[in-house]
C-alpha cells in the first residue's frame, strides 16, 4: 500500500479549497446524523413493538392455525430467489456458497433449540436461498429453465396459500408475492407490446403505442384502483375475482407498459445486420424475432428490467387503495392499536430498514448482472 491514510485524505478530501470546505461541512454532518441514529436505535427505541408484532408485519392477517402454509411458501420463495440470484453469482465459488449454506442451516437448528424462533427462521431463509444459488451455479440447466421454474413455483405457492383465504394474505409475504407475480407476468406482456409497437401493421402499432403512452401517463394508484373497479364489470356477476387478483392485474398492466419501453429500446439496439442475416437464411419473421432479436434485446436491457422490479417492489404499498394489507399497511395497523400508538418511530424505522435491505439486494443483483454482462460483451 503506497497510499497512506494521510495521502488518501489529502487527495480525496482536501485537494482544493472547495473540496476541503465541502469535506469540513459534510463529514461532521454525516457523522452527527449517523451517531444520533445509532444512539436512538440502540439506547432509546423500544423494539418490543416490532418483535411482538413480527408475525403481523411479515404475514398480515394470515390465519394463525394455517401458518404452516405460509412457512412452506416462504421457503419456496427463498429457493426461487436463490436460484435466480445464482445466475449472476460467480459459478466457480459454488463450494463456498454451499459451505455458508450448511453453516447457516446448523446455526438455524441451534437457534431453534435455544427457542430463538425468528433467528432460526431468518437463518433458514438464508440457507435455502444459498442452496438455491448453489443449484443454479452447479447445474446450468437449472438456470436455463429458471423462467419456467419461477412460473411453476409461484403457481404452486399461490395454490398452497389459497386455502387460507386469498384476501387474508398480507404483510411482507404479500409484498414479495405481488412483486414476483407482477414482475413475472408483466415481462411477457411487455415483450408483446414492444414487438407490437415495432410492428409493420399500423393498427397494431398504434394500439400498442396508445396503450403504452396511456399507462405511462397515469399514476400507479389510479391504475390499480381502476382495475379493481372495472374487472368485476367485465366478468359475469356470479364470478368472484379476489381483491388481490384485481390488484395484481393493475400492477401487471401498469408495469408492462414500462417493461415494453425497455424491451423496445433493446430491440432497437440490436444491429440491423442481425435481422438481415436471419432473413437471408430464410428464417420466418417469428423465428427471427424469437431466436435472433429477442435474446439479444433482453440481454442488453436486463439491468433496466431489474430496476423496474425494484420500482415495482417499492410501489406495492399502493395496494392500500383497495384495502389490502401489504408490509407498510401492516405496520400502520399495528400503530392503530392504542397499546402501540406511541411506537411509530420504531415501526417505521423497522419498515425503513427492511425496505432498504431488500431494495439493496435487488440493486446489488442489478449491478452484478451489469458487470457480468460487461465482462462478456464484445
Amino acid at each position, binding site marked *: 500500500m503506497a497510499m497512506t491514510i494521510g495521502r488518501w485524505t489529502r487527495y480525496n478530501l482536501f485537494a482544493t479549497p472547495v473540496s476541503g470546505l465541502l469535506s469540513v461541512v459534510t463529514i461532521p454532518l454525516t457523522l452527527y446524523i449517523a451517531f444520533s441514529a445509532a444512539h436512538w436505535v440502540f439506547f432509546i427505541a423500544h423494539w418490543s413493538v416490532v418483535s411482538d408484532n413480527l408475525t403481523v408485519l411479515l404475514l398480515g392477517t394470515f390465519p394463525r392455525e394455517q401458518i404452516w402454509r405460509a412457512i412452506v411458501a416462504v421457503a419456496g420463495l427463498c429457493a426461487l430467489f436463490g436460484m435466480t440470484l445464482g445466475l449472476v453469482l460467480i459459478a466457480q465459488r459454488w463450494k463456498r456458497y454451499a459451505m455458508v449454506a450448511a453453516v447457516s442451516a446448523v446455526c438455524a437448528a441451534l437457534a431453534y433449540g435455544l427457542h430463538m424462533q425468528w433467528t432460526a427462521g431468518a437463518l433458514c431463509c438464508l440457507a435455502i436461498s444459498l442452496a438455491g444459488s448453489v443449484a443454479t451455479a452447479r447445474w446450468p440447466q437449472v438456470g436455463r429453465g429458471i423462467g419456467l421454474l419461477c412460473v411453476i413455483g409461484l403457481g404452486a405457492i399461490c395454490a398452497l396459500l389459497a386455502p387460507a383465504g386469498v384476501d387474508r394474505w398480507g404483510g411482507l409475504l404479500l409484498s414479495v408475492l405481488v412483486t414476483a407475480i407482477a414482475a413475472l407476468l408483466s415481462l411477457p406482456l411487455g415483450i408483446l407490446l414492444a414487438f407490437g409497437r415495432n410492428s409493420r401493421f399500423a393498427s397494431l402499432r398504434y394500439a400498442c403505442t396508445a396503450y403504452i403512452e396511456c399507462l405511462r401517463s397515469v399514476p400507479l394508484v389510479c391504475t390499480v384502483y381502476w382495475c379493481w373497479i372495472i374487472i368485476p364489470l367485465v366478468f359475469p356477476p356470479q364470478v368472484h375475482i379476489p381483491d388481490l387478483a384485481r390488484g395484481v392485474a393493475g400492477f401487471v398492466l401498469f408495469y408492462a407498459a414500462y417493461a415494453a419501453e425497455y424491451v423496445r429500446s433493446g430491440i432497437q439496439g440490436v444491429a440491423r445486420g442481425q435481422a438481415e442475416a436471419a432473413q437471408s*437464411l430464410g428464417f420466418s419473421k417469428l423465428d427471427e424475432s424469437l*431466436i435472433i432479436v429477442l435474446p439479444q434485446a433482453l440481454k442488453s436491457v436486463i439491468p433496466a428490467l431489474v430496476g423496474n422490479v425494484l420500482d415495482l417492489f417499492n410501489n406495492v404499498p399502493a395496494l392500500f387503495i383497495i384495502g389490502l394489507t401489504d408490509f407498510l399497511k401492516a405496520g400502520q395497523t399495528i400503530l392503530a392499536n392504542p397499546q402501540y400508538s406511541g411506537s411509530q418511530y420504531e415501526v417505521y424505522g423497522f419498515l425503513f430498514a427492511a425496505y432498504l435491505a431488500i431494495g439493496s439486494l435487488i440493486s446489488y443483483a442489478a449491478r452484478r448482472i451489469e458487470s457480468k454482462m460487461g465482462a462478456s460483451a464484445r
Partner: protein
Amino acid sequence: MSAIVQMLKLNKSYGAFHVLKNIDLQVQSGEVVVIIGASGSGKSTLIRCVNGLEQFGDGRLVVDGFELAPSEDGFGIAKKELAAIRREVGMVFQHFNLFPHKTVLENVMLAPIRVRKWPRARAEATARKLLERVGLRDHVDKYPSQISGGQQQRVAIARSLAMEPRLMLFDEPTSALDPEMVGEVLEVMRELAKSGMTMIIVTHEMGFAREVADRVIYMDHGQVLEQGAPDDIFDQPTHERTRTFLSRVLKH
C-alpha cells in the same frame, strides 16, 4: 446452362435518388460474377435485391425460377416466393452478422434446423463438416466474439453453405477485415468457386476478381456500364470511366 438470376430493366430509387437504372443482368448456373465499381454505384443494392433484402421499383427479377414482384415500399411482396428464394440463396455480409449469442456451431446449425427442418443430428454433422472445410474445426464451441474477423467471416460462409444454396451472394466480404485476414477468406471463396458454386461477388479485391471471375461487371452511377471476361475488362476497358476507376484502384 440455365440462368439462375434474370434481371430485366430493373429500377430502384431512394426518393429522388435513382440507385439502379435499367439493369439487365443474367447469371448462369455455375457462373462466378464479380461486380466492381466505386462506392455508391449501386453494387450492394443490386445484389441485395436478389434475395429481397431490398425492394425495387419496376422491372422483372426472376431468381431460381421464382419471380419477385416490384414493390417500392415492400408491400405486395409475395411471401412464398421470397421465402423460397431465400432458402436457395445464401448471403455473406461485409460485417459478418454472426449471431453473437450462439456458438460457432449453433450459428451454422440453426438455419438448417429451423428453416429446412432437418433433424438436429444431420444439421450438426453437416455443420461440423463445413466448419472443417473452412478450417475452423477447433473453434466450433467458441462464441463469435472469441474469434478473429477472418475466422468470423469464414463461419459466416459456412453458415450460408449449410443451407445448401444454389447461389451465393457476397457483399464486400473482405472490406471490414484487417489486411492480414483477407487472404484466408479469399482462399475459402476461391475453393468454393472451384467447386462449381454459382456466385455473385461485390468486392474491391481486383486481383481476386481477375483470378476467379468468369465475368466482371463494372457498375457506375446505378448502371451496368461494361461487362465481359476479366482479362478484357482489366486490360482493355472500353469506357473512359472504367479506365479511370481501374487506374485509381490498381495504382496501389
